[in-house]
């Protein structure tokens, strides 16, 4: 549960569309261990799974995915079981795998590992990092440009460092447009209490307050709780920004769809697939691959066409980040 959005379909349709004929690699066995919640969470985990499936289709790999126990106490065991069963490479989804990957990597030096959202910490571990702050920066730019009241909001699911990256980028982006813009921030639960990703009712209350106070766009990084943010936006006749996947595509209700101005997309599927492809090409771990704006590892969705009018400004901001003239802070 790492602050996912709700849906992979946007990501996966795209990847399927982009499928190319790949060499059938015999004996490529990829293991993947999910974070708490497991496959089918319509979020972060599913996005990773989309990458895995793509590898299966395009690279002819044999795949296996495992979900951990509800308390996450058997993450290390899942990695070991995959290793014992001959899977290589093995991917851990979520920053919570950092420590366990390190341990497993030392125990199985001949196997390549990757961990999403955490840095490499062993020679055979690849860190798949995402520049959420950069994507969020763009969301901030778009929001500040669109905001009439010069008042924005941010709802974070769980107050941990991952979600704070979203907040930091969003604030920086918004302030780059209007330095005096007001941004309300609310987290739903403290670090260690993951119920903040599963509390749409609380998300709704928090966002409602922001809209009542005058905010007209609220950005959420709160997993399933984002649903409540959209509901509040619809009720207030205002707008919201989705996260992780293109939520305009994944949210089914028409009334909620139209409040989703844009989504900050985090391409975990791309990260996973690219890692596998690189592995096949003989790449070894020990370093991080950063999926940032440069490689479109993060970005803004445009479905619905709500931000078409500010597209130029967003593109400009993006350019600045890509060319390094703007560095986005990762901490608020």
């Amino acid at each position, binding site marked *: 549960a790492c602050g996912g959005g709700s849906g992979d379909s946007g990501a996966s349709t795209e990847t399927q569309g982009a499928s190319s004929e790949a060499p059938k690699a015999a004996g490529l066995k990829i293991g993947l261990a999910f974070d708490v919640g497991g496959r089918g969470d319509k979020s972060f985990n599913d996005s990773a799974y989309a990458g895995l499936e793509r590898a299966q289709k395009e690279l002819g790999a044999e795949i296996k995915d495992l979900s951990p126990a509800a*308390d996450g*106490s*058997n993450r290390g065991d899942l990695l070991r079981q995959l290793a014992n069963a001959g899977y290589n490479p093995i991917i851990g989804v979520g920053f919570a795998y950092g*420590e366990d990957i390190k341990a497993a990597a030392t125990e199985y030096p001949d196997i390549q590992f990757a961990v999403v959202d955490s840095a490499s910490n062993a020679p055979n571990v690849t860190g798949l990092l995402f520049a959420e702050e950069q994507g969020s920066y763009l969301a901030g730019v778009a929001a500040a440009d669109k905001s009439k009241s010069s008042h924005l909001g941010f709802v974070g699911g769980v107050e941990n460092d991952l979600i704070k990256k979203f907040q930091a980028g969003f604030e920086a982006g918004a302030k780059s447009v209007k330095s005096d813009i007001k941004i309300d921030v609310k987290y739903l639960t403290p670090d260690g209490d993951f119920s903040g990703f599963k509390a749409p009712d609380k998300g709704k209350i928090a966002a409602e307050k922001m809209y009542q106070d005058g905010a007209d766009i609220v950005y959420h990084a709160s997993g399933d709780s984002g649903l409540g943010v959209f509901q509040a936006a619809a009720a207030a006749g205002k707008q919201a920004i989705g996260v992780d996947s293109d939520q305009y595509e994944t949210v089914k209700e028409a009334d909620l769809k139209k409040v989703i101005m844009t989504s900050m997309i985090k391409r975990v599927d791309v990260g996973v697939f690219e890692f596998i492809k690189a592995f096949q090409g003989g790449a070894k771990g020990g370093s991080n691959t950063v999926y940032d704006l440069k490689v479109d590892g993060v970005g803004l969705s445009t479905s619905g066409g709500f931000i078409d009018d500010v597209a130029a400004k967003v593109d400009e901001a993006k350019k600045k980040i890509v060319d390094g003239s703007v560095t986005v802070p990762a901490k608020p």
Partner: protein
Amino acid sequence: MMPARLQRTLLTLAGAAVAVLLAVAISSVAILAAEASPITALEAMFDFGDTQAQVATAVAFILNRAVPLFIAGLAVAIGFRMNLFNIGIEGQYRIAAIVAAFVGSQFVLPGPIQITLIVVVAMLVGGLYALIPAVLKVTRGVNEVISTIMLNYIAINLAAFLVRGPFTGEREAGQLTTSTPQLPESAWFPNLNFLFEMFGLPAPRGGLWGFLTVAILVGVIIWVVLERTRFGFELKASGLNASAALASGVNPKRMVISAMVLSGAIAGLIGMPEILGRTHAYGSNFTAGLGFLGIAVALLGRNKPVGIAVAALLFGFLDRAAAPLQFADIPPSVIAIIQGTIVLLVVIANEITSRMSMRQEERRAARQLDTTSQAQAEVAA
């Protein structure tokens, strides 16, 4: 008479066995409903791997999982013995873990001393945190169920505050988990891999946490305390009949406080195996929920240390099956169903068997009464 006691034990065991079988049968129905084969599921559960190393790893996993569950069960059982419902184990072990992990990282001493100090701090903090509901109950009559529920939430927040604030440690670049500073190596509890080597097995991966020894020691101590000491007797008496205990000079307030504090102190140990044996710090990935599982384990083990140990091993065994079941394409949540039904059915079986043996005992008592009165009648005549 010994045979009566033996009979009681045998009856209990038979009941438990039947209950476990029944639970497996019920879960099999669920597995069938999921269009999978219960046989495959059973095979997966008992499949510890092909190589000796894998078997060793599996056994170590079960034991490593069982240790904190066992300690949690003990902590719960102490309160339960006197009908004190400490739902707050969850919060107590979290606060104890973070404070102990932080304190332990602040100095370096020879291993045994360092570890002892950390363990003592954990017990102290756990005990102190449990003192709050105890004092509220004794002085203000606040029901411990509510206060401990509230204190659990407070503990989560307090720990979150501490770990990102005053107690936060250095982090590797790119690591998103927050944690306390790493413990020095002297605080790393040596593992027990040599046990496997003694049996000619390879060392398990991940290692068998050395805290197992402490858990066994604590188990023995708790058993002795509960079954053999005056304190244990007073605890039992308070639980069986509070007003009789009161009239017998047992101070109920002192019992509430000492049972709660002891329970909290033991709870303080729950996080130690993981912190001293694996993570060497308290972080945002800290395993939560052991306090609640501890309640199930304690109840399954009938609040007795040996029973709790068996129950903890059973839970450990089932939890290990999560991965193999998924390899066999069976939904792993079957495990939760098995655990729930086992708890329920074993307890029902307990109830039935204990009623059976009690009835037997009454019959014997009545028979005795009959024979003596007959004998007397004969003497009188």
